């Protein structure tokens, strides 16, 4: 959390994260280049090393989300995931620049003109121009990298920002096509990496989606419109249960010092799963990036300004009943105090 925009709010964990990432990339490029065999000149080797490294990094960064859903111990990787994305985009741009400076250089045409006119279709599956796929993927990654800062998250709103950044999946699909119609037609060793990464990523997402899909959803009960959320004893102190509604955003019901409060399950920062967080220092704390909100009004403690929707609760005997109509973000609701 930050009260003003700075390029990067460095913390020790962020420095360690980036150092590990850069060390891994350096190891990859060193291993690729130093032990490479085959008649390939240095420039082509650099192009291949950067390109394959970018593909691997993009695969890994896309694996972080589902891994963190499956095992909370991966959450620290998600905390700085945008650094991972920006570094991945930088490596991909390095690959593109290396291509421009070698394959598209030394021509009567300028490198950018050459890039656009050189690779035309053959009319056959083999020979489908693969460069446009790579250009499109890089453009998407550049947009995502440029808008990765919290300023853009706030400016675009989390919902739009999130939708925009799901474009990384389109970029990945384009990269797979770029590789499939390009490098894979000529380089055998790359096949293993591409196959394992792409299939592994699909499997990981399917498994995570399957697990998430199995979580029960609740419909509003007629005629009161209230939803039976849970039993009073189901909510542990300092924790929440998540109520998934069929036609509305999920709601998190927290218990703190015996009293119950209901707020949106979606963090105002990046739509992180607030209900999977816990109460720390009297505030709901998001497990993704540590954003905090007060239980009674869904407002971040001053000087922060984020707000989330609150909900009204009713107690019928031992049953916690939820009014699924959200209050405007930041609306005060008296916490429910069981007798």
């Amino acid at each position, binding site marked *: 959390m930050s009260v003003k925009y700075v390029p990067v709010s460095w*913390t*020790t*964990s*962020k420095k360690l994260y980036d150092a590990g990432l850069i060390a*891994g990339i350096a*190891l*990859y490029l*060193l*291993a*690729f*280049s*130093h*032990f*490479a*065999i*085959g*008649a*390939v*000149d240095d420039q*082509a*080797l650099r192009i*291949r*090393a950067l390109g394959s*490294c970018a593909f691997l990094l993009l695969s*890994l960064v896309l694996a972080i989300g589902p891994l963190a859903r499956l095992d*909370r*111990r991966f*959450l*620290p*990787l998600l*905390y*700085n995931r945008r650094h991972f994305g920006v570094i991945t985009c930088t490596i991909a741009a390095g690959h593109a620049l290396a291509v421009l400076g*070698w*394959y*598209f250089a*030394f*021509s*009567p045409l300028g490198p950018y003109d*050459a890039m656009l006119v*050189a*690779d*035309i279709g*053959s*009319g*056959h599956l*083999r*020979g489908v121009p693969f460069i446009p796929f790579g250009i499109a993927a890089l453009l998407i990654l550049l947009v995502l990298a440029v808008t990765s800062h919290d300023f853009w998250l706030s400016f675009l709103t989390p919902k739009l920002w999130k939708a925009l950044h799901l474009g990384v999946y389109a970029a990945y699909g384009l990269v797979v096509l770029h590789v499939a*119609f*390009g490098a894979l*037609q*000529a*380089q*055998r*060793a*790359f096949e*293993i990496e591409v196959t394992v990464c792409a299939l592994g990523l699909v499997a990981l997402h399917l498994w995570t989606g399957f697990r998430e899909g199995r979580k029960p959803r609740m419909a509003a009960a007629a005629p009161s419109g209230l939803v039976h959320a849970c039993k009073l004893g189901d909510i542990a102190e300092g924790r929440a249960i998540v109520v998934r509604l069929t036609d509305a955003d999920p709601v998190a019901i927290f218990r703190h010092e015996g009293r119950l409060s209901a707020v949106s399950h979606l963090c105002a920062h990046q739509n992180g799963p607030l209900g999977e*967080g816990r109460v*720390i220092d009297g505030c709901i704390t998001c*497990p993704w990036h*540590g954003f905090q909100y007060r239980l009674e009004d869904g407002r971040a403690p001053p000087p922060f300004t984020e707000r989330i929707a609150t909900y009204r609760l009713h107690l019928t005997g031992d049953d916690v009943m939820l009014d699924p109509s959200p209050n405007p973000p930041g609306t005060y609701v008296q916490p429910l105090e069981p007798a």
Partner: protein
Amino acid sequence: MSPPDFFIGWDRNSGRAQFRFLALVAAGFLALLAGIGLLDGQDAAPRGLFHLAPPPPPDAPIDAVTLRGRVALHPYPTLFVQPDATHPSLHSVLLSGDGKRGPSIDPALADGAMVSVTGLKLRRGTIDMLVVGEEVHPLPDPPIAAPAPVSLGRWRVAGEICDGKCQTGAMQPGQGLSHRACASLCLIGGVPPVFVTASPVAGASFLLLAGPDGRALADLRRLAALPVVLEGEIERRGDLLVFKVDLTQARVL
């Protein structure tokens, strides 16, 4: 209150519970990248994956040479030099310019004129190329006889259309799909197109391409760097084989 069971970036104590796990993840990440980097660099498929070999030796320096001979402007600028101990018949050297360009030829230069050209010599397989950095100028030398074309008949040959420059060693790899755009640019720029055959034809695996009329071909980008079958007459000119093809008959494999 117990420390949080999840990581919070602004809480210095929150990551300690996962320290061992994160250390393992970091070690696994580094090992994964180093391992895959090692694997990806092993691209000599015929020699097998995981075949570790020392890095290739640095390229030998290329010295400039000066050649004198008869220039043929069609289908593409080629220099024919007198036979010597290495080349018992009239020896052909394809000409190209710097970068992805054809040679700079004086428009007044007549086909068949004697010239002197200085440049860097490239060689791959049976073809030689001279990268000419300056304009080709005529010599007053008495002309040497043009190589008498000898028809080897009509052939249907499988192979790949490459630019003659990268294929002669200016780039490695100088062929294949990943090199397709580069080859297209060389061909656009006027570098002579070469057909690299899947198996030798009359002892050669590199044929200079020409149209059915023996002149330069039109746009080759559609077929460059793809495995194709071409059909046409093969003609021997000195030690150079010229494949006169009709591209409308070309078939992508």
